[in-house]
């Protein structure tokens, strides 16, 4: 079968080295980084990389067998020279839109973009426009969308075993761009990507973070997402890690410790005259698997067949819009804001100092 030529732009933590941070962690099945995923996937050849930091790129090249001549400090030159099919954009969010749009406009057929999608909604809009105009397949690195455990959770919801889904409760929303991008995407996936109609939220640490329409850091947020089908998602800030409940009219399914443990309860007669939510049989989590690899295989499938990928441009845009709705609600004193947002030019622009990735396990 055809193999696709892949390259990574942004060779640091998520681009190439995060596997070293999670060795043995049951919830992170390797491969985890973009490069490790391409390296492991039999349908992709990792042939080139780009980064403005040559020291990081050299270590990346050593790890993934990328020769010096295929290590680029200018991603444009790499795209021009390497005849690539797939590009990963594993940079920080601020430069992401420019790179994705350039790649889409210069012949790349599939893009794996790290989350968050973009630093502003206007930039995310421009990404969608370029991706659709060029028929480019796209997946955003919100990995739980490919996690088999959450697929199984969604299957329980879709089966009707919980009755009518009423609420999703997410227990650790965290920073909006870094973590909220994951959590928001997850609840949208669990609710079958039904459109969001409103958001009410507040940011716990936003004081002094705004300079006009510039957001100078990634804020921590909590709030409620209102979906078109009447489901609400409560995005809480608690000391827990990433845990999520799905509550329906006839039961509840809880995913503890980021889907490592489960509690399925359904409405049953607990004693004469009383019904309670009691532990129920019937939930068998699947074998764990690498969500990064599944994401890449999803893109490969799209390239093979022309079928849409699981987190195409508009799916990614929808969850990105919710991030900005959290911020806008906070700026309006906690008011509920309706989607689509009118204001789309607020931009996160951090004074970000790049970190050195963990080169060894």
């Amino acid at each position, binding site marked *: 079968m055809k193999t696709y030529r892949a390259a990574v732009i942004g060779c640091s933590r998520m681009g190439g080295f995060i596997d070293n941070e999670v060795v043995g962690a049951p919830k992170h099945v390797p491969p985890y980084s973009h490069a490790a995923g391409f390296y492991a996937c039999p349908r992709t050849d990792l042939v080139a990389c780009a980064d403005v930091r040559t020291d990081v790129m050299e270590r990346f090249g050593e790890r993934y067998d990328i020769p010096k001549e295929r290590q680029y400090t200018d991603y444009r030159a790499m795209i021009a020279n390497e005849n690539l099919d797939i590009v990963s954009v594993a940079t920080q969010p601020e430069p992401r839109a420019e790179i994705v749009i350039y790649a889409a406009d210069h012949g790349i057929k599939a893009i794996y973009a790290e989350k968050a999608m973009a630093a502003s909604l206007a930039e995310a809009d421009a990404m969608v426009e370029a991706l659709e105009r060029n028929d480019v397949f796209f997946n955003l690195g919100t990995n739980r969308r490919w996690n088999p455990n959450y697929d199984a959770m969604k299957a329980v919801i879709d089966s009707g075993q919980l009755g009518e889904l009423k609420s999703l409760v997410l227990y650790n929303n965290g920073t909006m761009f870094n973590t909220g991008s994951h959590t928001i995407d997850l609840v949208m996936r669990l609710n079958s990507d039904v459109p969001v109609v409103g958001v009410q939220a507040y940011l716990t640490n936003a004081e002094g973070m705004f300079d006009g329409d510039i957001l100078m850091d990634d804020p921590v947020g909590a709030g409620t997402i209102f979906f078109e089908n009447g489901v609400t998602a409560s995005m809480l800030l608690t000391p*827990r890690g990433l845990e999520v409940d799905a509550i329906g009219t006839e039961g509840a399914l809880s995913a503890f410790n980021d889907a490592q443990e489960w509690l399925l309860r359904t409405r049953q007669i607990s004693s*004469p005259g009383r019904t309670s939510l009691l532990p129920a049989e019937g939930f068998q989590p699947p074998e764990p698997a690498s969500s990064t690899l599944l994401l890449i295989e999803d893109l490969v499938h799209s390239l093979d067949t022309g079928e849409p990928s699981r987190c195409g441009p508009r799916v990614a845009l929808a969850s990105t819009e919710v991030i900005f709705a959290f911020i806008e609600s906070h700026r309006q004193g906690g008011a509920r804001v309706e989607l689509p947002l009118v204001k789309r030019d607020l931009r996160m622009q951090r004074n970000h100092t790049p970190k050195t990735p963990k080169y060894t396990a």
Partner: protein
Amino acid sequence: MSDKQYRVAIVGLGRMGSTIDDELPADSPPYSVSAACAASDRLQVVAGADIDAAKRAAYAERWGVTALYDDYLEMIRQESPDLVAICTKGVLHAEMSVAVAEAGVPMIFCEKAIACSLAEADAVLDAVGSRNIPYNTGVLRRFNQGFHQARKFIEEGAIGDPKCAVHYAPTNLLHGHIHSLDTLSFLLGDPRIVDVWGELHPRELSLADNRLDKDPNGIYHMNADNGVQLYSVAAGGWEFEVLGTRGSVRVLNNGGGLHLRQAQDERGRKVETVGTPPLTPHSTTQACLEDLVDAHEQDRPALGNIQVTHHITQAVLAIAESHRQGRRLTPAEVDREMYIFHV
């Protein structure tokens, strides 16, 4: 604890006063005020009042109490009860609480909620608080041993520092969230609520006339002065959870069980279920009324005293005020005349 048996008079001889046990499974602990008093060595119902003669007759037949009145103030004058239980419709709670307090009754139980407006709640606070009358309302999870066990876990540090508390159920304000917020408050040691965001459902509900003639459903998010965030989730079946830095405790199935999870690692992120002792069914109404007696004898505030009750009533009304203003606000910003009917 003395051996004294206290004289109880009930105002309103309907459901909570007399008959609600008929709606429950046969093995349920006593729930109505009359049933709870019958189960208690410390309480005896000696009189009752209701404007409905049929209810008075039914009450006499059921409970054998003959000192029955159509005028509750006349009942108080004639019978000098130690404790009056106000079990009438919600719109009468405030007026009756004030009148019973002013009549010199030493202990008062009042069905929830105590008021339809903050102005009414203020009047109850003034009448009851100025006389230091032990006062409990029918927010009975506060007197449920399952919730006491959960609060004990929290107080003893079993979940680390509490950071977040969640109520799970769709419900209305003064009939339902008066329970939900009181219970979260109890679990957390009754902190002060410092700000409130709320929304009423359906969202089109308008408070333009400063009045709602039907108790509306709503959701809230609040911050307390101990740094804990309080949330309502409009789904599930009356469960409550407090989440801390080292774990969480959830009261399952409306007090039917506990789910305690504790951290197994240094960071407190990997939490596992820990076994808890089984809970024993008991009468929360009896515990509530006997708490009034203990408070009276020990000269201490009742567990659900008027100061706490007033504060929680104000915070619940703030949900509606936040809905009206479309923003987060402090409980002090509630329009004191805003009126919400409740049953």
